[in-house]
């Protein structure tokens, strides 16, 4: 399954979050919000990933257009899924979810900055 649109990122994240059957534990709104935050984080860590937005606002996604393309280089699309999953787990207060959240968010950062991650 390719990772091109906002919906693709949501679907892939739900697979990892084990949240593929409605009613969802993590609503689409939260996952789209996490994707928007991932864009900001990626812009901070790797500005060149959003070179075409240097003189424009960063892309911002919404529930009203889940078919919008997410302009991320194919090498880094999986990292964005990890960020969305990590951000979704942040709101859970179970201890094991905290560690999963940290693992996902750290994986996102590590993949942005290093080759071994």
């Amino acid at each position, binding site marked *: 399954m390719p990772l091109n649109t906002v919906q693709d990122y949501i679907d892939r994240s739900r697979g990892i979050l084990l949240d593929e059957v409605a009613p969802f534990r993590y609503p689409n709104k939260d996952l789209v919000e996490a994707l928007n935050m991932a864009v900001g984080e990626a812009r901070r860590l790797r500005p*060149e*990933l959003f*070179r075409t937005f240097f003189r424009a606002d960063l892309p911002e996604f919404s529930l009203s257009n889940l078919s919008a393309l997410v302009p991320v280089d194919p*090498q880094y699309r999986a990292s964005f899924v990890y960020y969305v999953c990590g951000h979704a787990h942040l709101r859970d207060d179970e201890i094991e979810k905290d560690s999963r959240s940290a693992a996902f968010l750290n994986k996102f950062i590590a993949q942005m*900055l290093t080759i071994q991650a």
Partner: protein
Amino acid sequence: MSSPHTNRLMDQARINLPGAIDGAMLVEFYSVLKEFFTRSNAWTEEIGFTTILGEKDYTLTPTAGAIIRLLGVVEDERNPVNASMATPAALKLSWEPTEVRPLVAHVVICVSDASATTDYPVYPQWIVDKYHNEILDGLLGRMMAQTAKPYSAPGAAMVRLRNFRAGTNQAKLEASRRNVFAAPAWRFPRSFAM
């Protein structure tokens, strides 16, 4: 511009720079070419123009790229004419012409955004082919010198950039000899230093 030479060079860069995206490489590729052409004088052009009575100022337009340096102006293909170019492309004769005469200006060209129709700037393909390894070293060096990237490698960057600068100096030498083996340094008619 994209070409088999450039594609090969970019492919080699991609292999050596895991995690690098093409957009970032193109930005640095432009800077590498800018430094290479500025330092080496490898890209030159002869631009002919005709004097106008009483007019000392002329604007030169190269076929591609941007003029960065004046090598000299000649008349009848050998007689030097005094001229200067304080602003690139704006040629100023040191005298007011009293007759209409054809002159030729020899200029050094560098890549320019203005002449770019794609993400790749326009440049002579033979130069990138001839100095393939040197330009690749420059691109890899500049990319590896970036901070906090998967492909950051300060030590390797220093080696690559050193090789690039040595290659640029070699290109400058060969350009001064007009690519003639063991020839004396080419000189434009005296009073015009390179």
